[in-house]
């Protein structure tokens, strides 16, 4: 079984910021992602489920170039205004062609 090295970018943010994140992804032609509602606690205290206070976690398997440029854009345009964190983990996949 041959595995190819790639990256898993995870963004956890207030749900009302989800659209902005997905817009950034599509601007960088990344169309594969997974997301789900979560609860959480952080510096901005905007945690918990319920109307307008939900968090969402977005996960994207993507190559180094896209990772760099997307992480850069999110940091620059979103970090100051939204409750948001971002981290990256090394991942291995089988069909590397599937992940832009």
């Amino acid at each position, binding site marked *: 079984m041959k595995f190819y090295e790639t990256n898993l970018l995870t963004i956890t943010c*207030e749900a*009302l*910021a989800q*659209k*902005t994140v997905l817009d950034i992804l599509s601007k960088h032609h990344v169309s594969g992602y997974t997301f789900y509602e979560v609860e959480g606690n952080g510096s901005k205290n*905007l945690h918990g*489920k*319920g*109307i*307008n*206070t939900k968090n969402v976690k977005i996960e994207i398997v993507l190559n180094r170039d896209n990772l760099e440029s997307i992480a850069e854009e999110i940091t*620059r*345009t*979103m970090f100051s*205004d*939204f409750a948001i964190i971002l981290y990256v983990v090394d991942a291995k996949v089988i069909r590397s062609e599937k992940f832009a």
Partner: protein
Amino acid sequence: MGIIELIQSNLLTPVVLFFILGIVAARIKSDLKIPEAISEFLPIYLLAAIGLHGGMEMRTTGFANMLIPLLAAIALSLLMTLNHYQILRRLGKFNIFDSYALASTYGAVGAVTFSVGLSFLKNQGVTSEGFLTAILAVLEPISFVLAIFLTNMAVSKMVQKKRQTLQKDPQNDLSTYAELESGTSHNKSFYHVLRESITGKAIVILLGSIIIGYLVGKEGFLPIKLLFEDLFAGAIVIFLIEMGIIAGRRLDDIKNVGPFLVGFSIVIPTVNGIIGVAVSTFLGLSVGGAVMFGLLLASASFIAAPAVLRTAIPQAKPSLYITSALGITFPYNIIVMLPIMFTISSYLHNL
């Protein structure tokens, strides 16, 4: 019944008491909560019920007498939004973003407040004009779109000014420049916001239900009357438990919003509401209709507003507009303003 007795009797209705129970539960850090699926479904249900009812009424009464009140409501809502902005920016010293966000939150209308108003009128044995529901639907996006249009204009101007300063400056910092650009690009276009507002679930279900109510009429409504009319009061009670819980959690934030905004959150609905009652009485609406018209202007949006504003004006602090609208203005409206407006409306109609 005097105002005080009316407030007292309104206080002792299940709707208000369960709202207070929700607040208490949040304050004592109870784990009481209405599951999300239920509290997401209830606004849809409430809007469908309101819409069906409004549509059926309009079938009997027609559109004729609706136009003037509608135009009046739009004009008042826009004027009030601009007025809120001046107050917040000049007197409150809020920044542009927070000022516009708050201005439109209070210029917009609250569908939940509207539902509670209908149930209040029912308790008083009074009806209201069906077309008010249609006004609710039209009014919803109006002040958002205005506020976002003005914010974008203001930001563009700011960017232009800074750009000129930067160009004069020999140390022309490119990164600052890029940031400014990105700042603007962020703020969604007028058209974009308009589109999102009118495809938003609240408008779609409300307008849809008005049309359906109009089409099916009272007879076609009969098989679903049990769900969409008779259960309405009970459903509001459930929803207000959750609203109380959310409001209760926000109470801590009240000290952070500052005394100016607390005052604003009480004075503005009072003034707007009374203006609304007076104008609509003058325009010939019924006692109950004038109360609902006043309530439209008095109410602030706390479900639709954050969803729209968070993408459209991300620089504005949601803790300001959610806390004041949900934590102060909403309870004030359903507990104090409804009885006040009802008394004023009754008085004006008896002149």
